[in-house]
C-alpha cells in the first residue's frame, strides 16, 4: 500500500473517531440538560405540592407563604427559558422535549391555580397573563409576542406569565383551554381574565393590560398586595 493510501485511510479513521467523540459529547451535554430540567421540575413539583398541601391543611390560607409562591413562579419562569432553549436545540418533536413540556405545562397550571387561591384568600392581586402559542408553523406572530412578553416580564417583575404550547397533548391543558374558551387563533392572551387574540405591537399589548397593572412603581415588588 502506498504512503498516500495508508495515510488517507488512517485520516479517515481519525475523522470517524473525532466525529464519533463529538457526537457522543454533544449528546452527553444534551442529556445533562435534560437531566437538569428533570431535576428542576421534580423540585418545583415537590415545592408546589407542599404549598398546595398547606392550603388544604389550613382553612385560612398560609398567606405568609406568598413570597414562597413568588420564588416558585420565578423558578418556573427560569425553567421555561431553559426548556425553550432545549426545544430549539433538540427540536419540538423530540420525545424527551415533549414529555418535559407536558410536565412544565402541568406545573404552570398548578402554579396558576395557587396564585388564584392566594388572590382570593390573601387579598393579593398579582398581574397574570396566560399566553397560548404554537410552534407548528401556523402562528406567524408568536415569536414577536413571546419576545414582547419576555421583555414585559423582565421589566415588571410582578407580572406572572404562563406560556402554553396550544398543541400539547395534555388533558389538564385541554381542560384549561376549554374552561377559558381559547380558540385556535394564535397567539392568544388571557390578561387578568380577559381574552385577547393576535399580536400587533408591544404598545398594543401593553394597552390590553388594566390601568396601572404595569405601573413601574411596583416593579420592585413581587406581587401587588391590596
Amino acid at each position, binding site marked *: 500500500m502506498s*504512503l498516500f493510501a495508508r495515510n488517507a485511510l488512517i485520516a479517515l479513521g481519525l475523522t470517524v473517531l*473525532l466525529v464519533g467523540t463529538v457526537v457522543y459529547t454533544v449528546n452527553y451535554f444534551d442529556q445533562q440538560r435534560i437531566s437538569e430540567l428533570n431535576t428542576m421540575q421534580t423540585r418545583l413539583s415537590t415545592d408546589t405540592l407542599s404549598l398546595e398541601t398547606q392550603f388544604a391543611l389550613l382553612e385560612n390560607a398560609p398567606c405568609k407563604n406568598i413570597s414562597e409562591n413568588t420564588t416558585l413562579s420565578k423558578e418556573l419562569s427560569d425553567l421555561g427559558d431553559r426548556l425553550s432553549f432545549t426545544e430549539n436545540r433538540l427540536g419540538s418533536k423530540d420525545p424527551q422535549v415533549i414529555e418535559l413540556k407536558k410536565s412544565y405545562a402541568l406545573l404552570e397550571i398548578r402554579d396558576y391555580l395557587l396564585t388564584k387561591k392566594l388572590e382570593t384568600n390573601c387579598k393579593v392581586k398579582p398581574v397574570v397573563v396566560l399566553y397560548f402559542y404554537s410552534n407548528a408553523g401556523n402562528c406567524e406572530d408568536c415569536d414577536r409576542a413571546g419576545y414582547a412578553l419576555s421583555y414585559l416580564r423582565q421589566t415588571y417583575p410582578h407580572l406572572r406569565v404562563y406560556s402554553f404550547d396550544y398543541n400539547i397533548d395534555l388533558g389538564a391543558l385541554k381542560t384549561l383551554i376549554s374552561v377559558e374558551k381559547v380558540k385556535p387563533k394564535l397567539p392568544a392572551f388571557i390578561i387578568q381574565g380577559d381574552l385577547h387574540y393576535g399580536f400587533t405591537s408591544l404598545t398594543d399589548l401593553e394597552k390590553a393590560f388594566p390601568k396601572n397593572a404595569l405601573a413601574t412603581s411596583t416593579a420592585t415588588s413581587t406581587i401587588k398586595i391590596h
Partner: protein
Amino acid sequence: MAWSPNLIVYPFLLAAIYYEFFLLVTFLSKPARDSRKRGTPTTYPHVAIIVPCWNEENTIESTTKSLLALKYPSKKLSIVLVNDGSTDNTKKILARFARHPQIKIINKEKNGGKYTALNAGISSSPEAEFIGCLDADSLVAPDALREIVSCFEKPEVMATTAAMSVHKPHTLLQHMQYAEYIFGITTRHILSSVNGIYVTPGPFSIYRSKVFRELGNFRHGYQTEDLEMALRIQYAGYKIENSLRARVYTKAPSTLRPLLKQRVRWTSGFLRNILYDYRGLIANPRYNALGLFILPFALFSMFSGISLFSLSIFEFAKSTIHSVSVAQGVPLTYALSLHSFSWFYLPFTVMFFLGGATLLITLVFIVMGKRLSNTPGNLTVSAIAYSILYGFVAPLWLIRSVADVASGARRSWR
C-alpha cells in the same frame, strides 16, 4: 429530512477535518520526518538566481543585497537582474550593481511580462546547474540557498520551494497573510513528502536547469507562470521538493484592493491552468496523492469557501431580519442586556466542536510551521487576525476568480 443549513455545512466541515488529519498523519510519516533531518549539502553546484524587475525601485536594492549575503561559494552563485521595461528608476538602481562580479544585468526595453524576463535570465545562464527565481520584492535568509540545494539529492527532483513568510507585517491584513503564509510553510513541507506540491512560488523556488531543456522555458500560464511550471513538472512525472528552513520574506499587500487583485490573479490562474491545460492531472491515479486527493481537494475547498460564505451571508441576513422583526417596538436595551451565565446555554453543538477542531488543528499547523522553519515574528496578533478575517476575505477573491474564469475576463497584473 427537513431543510437545515447544517446539511450544507457538515459535508464541508467533515472534508476540511479529513484533509487536516491527512496532513497531520503525513507530517508524522517517515518521509516527512526524514526531510526534517536534512543537513547541509555535500557539494555546491553552480546556481543562477534570476530576479525579474518591473518598476521595483523601492525594493530591488535590498533584494539584491540579500542575495549577495547568501552563504554560498561566490564563484558558484550568479545573480541575473532582469529589468523588464521598467518606467521608474529601477534601471538606474540596477546600474549600481553593474560592476559586481556575481551580477549580470539584462535590460529589456519593452515590458514583456514576468515569464519573458525569467526566460531571458535562463538563456543568459547556460553554465548554471540550477536556476532560481526571486521576486524583486522578496528577501532571502543567508542560509536559504544551502538549505534548498540539499533537497536535490534525488535526480527526479526538478524543483524545490522555500519557506515563505511575510516581511514585517504592519496592517491587520498583512498579519492575516503572515499566519496564512506560515500555514503554507507547514502544508508545503507535508505535501512535498507525497509529491503533492502544485506551485513553485516566485519567491525563491529553485529549478534543476535540465527541466527547462526538457520541458521548455516559462510560459505565460494565465499570469501564473510559477504554477504552470510546477504543474508541467508534475505532469511530466518529476518531483517537487520543499525546504522547510530556506526562509524567504516577501512583501504582502497591506490593503484589501491590492490583496484581492493579487489573489484573483493566483486563483483564476490556478483554475485556468487546471481546467484548461492540466485537466489530465485530476483524478488520475498516475499522479497518486496530487491527482487523487490534493488537486481535487483544492478545487473542492474553493467551492466550499464560496458556498459557506454565501450561506453565512444568507443565514445572517435572514436571522437579522427575523431578530429585527421580532424585537420591533421592544427597547434595544432589553436585547443588549446581559443575562446571567450558565453552562446550560453554552452552544455545545456538533458544529461548534467540529469547527473548533478545524480551527485548532490549523493553529497547531501555524505554530509548527513557525517553529520548524525558525521564522521570526510574533504569531499572536497574526493568528487572531487570521482566525477572524480569513473566512470573510478569502471568499471575496474566490468568488471574483470563479466569475472571471466563467466570464473569460482578464485582468492586468497590478
